[in-house]
């Protein structure tokens, strides 16, 4: 344990302890800020009853489907746009037009087109992920040192081989950046799309609790979302280490 570790652990423990004491001595109302231990107790209760795991599964299903479709489309389109000029020209105005739109603003449209079920939510998440991955993939392809392409040609690589053996690995670090940003976006969007027009999912659980002024359950939802965010970051970092072992990382 270094000094840094101690400071970090101390910061968390002290704040939680002060919070717990303030609530227990009645200086803070449980309605606004329930004590950490009672949130934990509620979390355990909801886990045992199966309510929380089910909500997580429902949301994860939407997030994962949207993420995978969006990421795959983003990677393929990004590699093509980065490598082939005319494809970039064809895609560019659409990316420029749709990229700045908050993807949550598209949700009503998707509700109209795909109905109240999972599809409208998955589509919103997929579009949000797609543009982040697409833009980062294009950046990755463009950042490849042109001499590497020359070297590949000089060594006898065909166009397809240049695509699979130079452009794809060359863009991979940026693709992972896009995936990490996309994962964050997917969690934001799953919450927003679960506020309305659904009866299941972590977002629904959180929003319903708010409407009933059940602050403990709101906290359970917030903390679970946080845990999902941390887990997705870890998973993607692990995949990145596996996929890009050559990339130098600080720390």
């Amino acid at each position: 344990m270094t000094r840094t570790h101690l400071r970090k652990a101390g910061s968390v423990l002290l704040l939680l302890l002060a919070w717990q004491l303030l609530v227990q001595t009645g200086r803070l109302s449980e309605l606004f800020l329930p004590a950490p231990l009672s949130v934990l107790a509620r979390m355990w209760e909801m886990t045992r009853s199966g309510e929380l795991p089910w909500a997580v599964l429902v949301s994860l299903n939407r997030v994962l489907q949207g993420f995978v479709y969006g990421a795959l489309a983003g990677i393929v389109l990004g590699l093509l746009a980065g490598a082939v000029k005319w494809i970039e020209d064809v895609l560019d105005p659409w990316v420029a037009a749709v990229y700045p739109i908050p993807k949550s603003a598209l949700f009503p449209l998707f509700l109209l087109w795909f109905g109240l079920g999972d599809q409208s939510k998955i589509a919103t998440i997929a579009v949000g992920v797609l543009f982040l991955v697409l833009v980062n993939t294009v950046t990755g392809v463009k950042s490849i040192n042109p001499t590497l392409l020359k070297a590949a040609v000089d060594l006898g690589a065909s166009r397809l081989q240049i695509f699979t053996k130079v452009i794809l690995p060359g863009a991979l670090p940026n693709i992972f950046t896009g995936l990490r940003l996309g994962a964050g976006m997917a969690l934001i969007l799953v919450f927003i799309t679960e506020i309305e027009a659904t009866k299941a999912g972590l977002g629904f659980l959180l929003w319903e609790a708010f409407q009933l002024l059940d602050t403990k359950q709101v906290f359970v939802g917030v903390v679970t979302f946080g845990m999902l965010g941390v887990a997705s970051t870890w998973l993607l970092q692990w995949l990145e280490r596996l996929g890009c072992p050559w990339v130098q990382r600080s720390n």
Partner: protein
Amino acid sequence: MILEVRGVGKVWTIERTGEHHVALESVSLDVAPGEFLIFLGPSGCGKSTLLQIIAGLEAPSAGEIRFPAAAAGGGNGKLTSMVFQDYALFPWRTVIANVAFGPEVRHMPRGARLAQAQRLIELVNLKGFEHRYPHELSGGMRQRVALARALANDPQILLFDEPLAALDSQTRRVLQDELLRIWAETGKTFIYVTHSLQEAVLLGSRIVLMTASPGRVKRVLDVPLPRPRHLTGRAEADILDRLDADLSDEVKRALAS
């Protein structure tokens, strides 16, 4: 002749202004098998462009490149391989995977190409570094990997584009000696671009002095001296003197234009 350069010219169009820039003008030259040929000239004299045209990476605006030996059926497909100034190693490939890239894209079986890569890695004195990534190597080691990678396609001609320019002088000396050893061991034709007069005299069996833009052949000089050469030797100093004035003129012209 292994290579014939016939009236090669290159004109670049500067996109922003629409102006034309003549990089090379009617360069003609014959290269004999096994030569260590040096293109010597100031920066921007088009010598790198000429190398890229010989490699087939750039199309000439005029003239042509011929490989008479290949036309007679003497080649194995790949005639030239390039060693770039900034190494151009694939950062995501380890040393051995970089060296095996050419054979890999030419569909040589995995076992054969790895065995061959291993031999070449030993030839360039990098045994023990097979599984390092390029960023884990020094500049001198990277350039050795680039050389091994270029040799892996078994080209008849190796093209060097100022390969040692980015290295410190001590490393450069060591690699110059290694280049000469590998040139002698493999018997391949080396075509080497440099702006260093000293390097040209240390390495070349023939030196082609280029003019500043547009690049033309100013003078061709045979260097029939035995190796190893020393810059302090009398015969070497004599050749240095003979080229020095000419090269200085061209450097001045390059700076003035």
